[in-house]
């Protein structure tokens, strides 16, 4: 049963830029290989954590919004657990209100971007 999911994960801040990019691409590739359709992916970059996780006070945030089969989530999360660069992850199913909200959010984010660089 295909439904829409949203996953957020935090990477340790000790990574260099391309290490961080490489882990993000690794997960993106993993999703695409297993037949997911990525609707949206956002990188919030380095953010300060509200409380220290694994003795770190900041981390790289990455968000993926994708459509996938229910059984895929389990192996996605085992991938997260295996990768030691990821210190925290969370996957959430989206109901119809959430999907609407995300679309609206994406529009004003893109508007904000265009208004930024005007």
């Amino acid at each position, binding site marked *: 049963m295909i439904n829409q999911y949203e996953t957020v994960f*935090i990477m340790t801040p000790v990574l260099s830029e391309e290490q961080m990019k490489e882990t993000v691409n690794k997960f993106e590739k993993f999703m695409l290989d297993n037949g997911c359709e990525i609707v949206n992916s956002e990188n919030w970059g380095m953010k300060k954590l*509200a409380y220290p996780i694994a003795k770190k006070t900041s*981390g790289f*945030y990455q*968000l993926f919004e994708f459509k996938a089969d229910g059984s895929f989530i389990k192996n996605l999360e085992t991938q997260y657990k295996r990768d030691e660069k990821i210190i*925290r992850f*969370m996957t959430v199913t989206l109901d119809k*209100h959430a999907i*609407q909200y995300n679309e609206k*959010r994406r529009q004003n984010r893109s508007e904000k971007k265009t208004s930024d660089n005007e």
Partner: protein
Amino acid sequence: MAQANSDIKYLTPIAVDIKKKKFCRFKKLGIKYIDYKDPQYLTRFINDQGKILPRRLTGTSLKYQKKVAQAVKRARQIALLPFVGDNLKENMGGNK
């Protein structure tokens, strides 16, 4: 020689707090989904120590209070909101 109680003058009139009609802001604004990724918005529903405000103070309906609680707990999970904060509102710039 009991003084008539009318002589007792209160310095300030007794403040009988007028009953402000509480309403569920989500029903009124027609908000259907509370996003856990936006901590700025969620700070309105937590107090200074990071605790979730009860319904009797915020006046939200049960359905949306559950969504608020779920969103706050998710935000805490991905470290956007602290589990225990001190004077959260100042450093987060919480908007009332």
